[in-house]
């Protein structure tokens, strides 16, 4: 009986495919420790650092892209401003030119108008003075002529109507003789 038990024990002790209790227990302890270490420490840490690195790289790329976009936007804006400025300058220049031309034209027109007015004034004045001179001359010449004639003729031409008729006749004669002279 006891030899059977010993034989069985020896069989267990020499069979490499049947684990002893202590073997299984320490294997389990070892595996649990390893699994816990990797599950709760190593792999989370590994993932964390990889994520961190990826985030930094992605952040850097995003930052660079942002900077580039910003620079492009700035350039665009600058170009736009430049174009706007140029357009504005051209517009101002054009406006100044047209305005200058307009002013010039206006001034010319004004001057012409002024000169025309002055000319017209002068002519009117001359005409008026001529008329006045004509009238006064006519009156004076008449009087003088009548005085002279009455002295010469000895008769007093008191009758105004007669006198005026006489004078007119005389003057008409005078004018016709003048124009005849001028016509020669």
């Amino acid at each position, binding site marked *: 009986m006891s030899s059977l038990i010993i034989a069985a024990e020896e069989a267990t*002790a020499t069979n490499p495919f049947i684990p002893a209790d202590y073997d299984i227990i*320490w*294997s389990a302890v*070892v595996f649990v420790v*390893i699994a816990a270490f990797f599950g709760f420490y190593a792999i989370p840490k590994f993932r964390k*650092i990889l994520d961190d690195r990826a985030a*930094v790289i992605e952040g850097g790329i995003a930052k660079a892209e942002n900077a580039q976009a910003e620079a492009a936007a700035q350039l665009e804006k600058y170009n736009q401003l430049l174009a706007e400025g140029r357009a504005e300058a051209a517009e101002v220049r054009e406006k100044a030119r047209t305005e200058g031309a307009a002013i010039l034209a206006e001034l010319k027109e004004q001057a012409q108008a002024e000169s025309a007015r002055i000319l017209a004034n002068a002519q009117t004045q001359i005409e008026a003075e001529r008329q006045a001179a004509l009238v006064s001359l006519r009156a004076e010449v008449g009087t003088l002529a009548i005085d002279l004639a009455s002295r010469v003729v000895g008769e007093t031409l008191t009758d105004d109507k007669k006198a005026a008729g006489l004078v007119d006749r005389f003057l008409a004669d005078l004018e016709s003789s003048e124009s005849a002279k001028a016509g020669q």
Partner: protein
Amino acid sequence: MPRSQERALHADTVTLAAGEGGEFHAPGIGEFLGLPELFFADTPFAIDRIVMVRLIAIAIMLVLFYIGLRKAKRVPGHGQSLAELAIDFVKTQIVDQVLGEKHGKRFLPLLTAMFFGIFAMNITGIIPGANIAGTSLIGMPLLLGLVAYVVFIYAGIKEHGAPGFFRAQLFPSGVPWPVYIILTPVEFINIFVVRPLSLALRLLLNMMVGHLLLVLCFAATHFFFFSAGGLYSLFGIGTLAFGFIFTLVELAVAVLQAYVFTLLTAVYIQQSVSHEH
């Protein structure tokens, strides 16, 4: 017979065999089983050499990762770069590639834990002083296989619901129904029995055999140099060279087995959550 006594006896015979000058003693299962219990002897918490190597390897691995990630900065230092490189290897080469972004995110912690845990316990096989892989005792590979098993079934049930998951796994669409008579039992055995066991046994046997090869090479070298003497020492040079080569092979195997285990677990999860089977 109490266990420690029996172990001690077993260990005694091993040392006796090794200590007997002229005899060459080939390494056997005693390399892994019946080792003296160093702490908590005769309790379920007993610690022998292999368990101690596991604990130390894991402690060092975790401390290294902790140091690497402790002051994680945007611009990484040397330690942080290495830690990130290591995790990124598992993430891109295994998790994202097999599971894709969506599912990969959920299972990344578990799969990195598997990969680095297995690697740390494998690499001790060629570290002087440890000289044994922490995974060369069935408990660890079996537990990891069990974890993979639970995880891929959980993932499938969560994705499709239990009936949907089992239907998709056991009755793959696109075959005429009589085929199910053969296909369904085969798939059942393959998925629910072979997968976890093959994961565990592949890892265990690779590490056991690797260790045995190394021990064989170095024990033979020792024997040829110090026990046989004379012209036999020349054989010792050959066996030492083999030991050197197998050490490099074991380095590759340590990485490869961690990679294969994790990759297959990811593939199983992928097949569970996938919508076309």
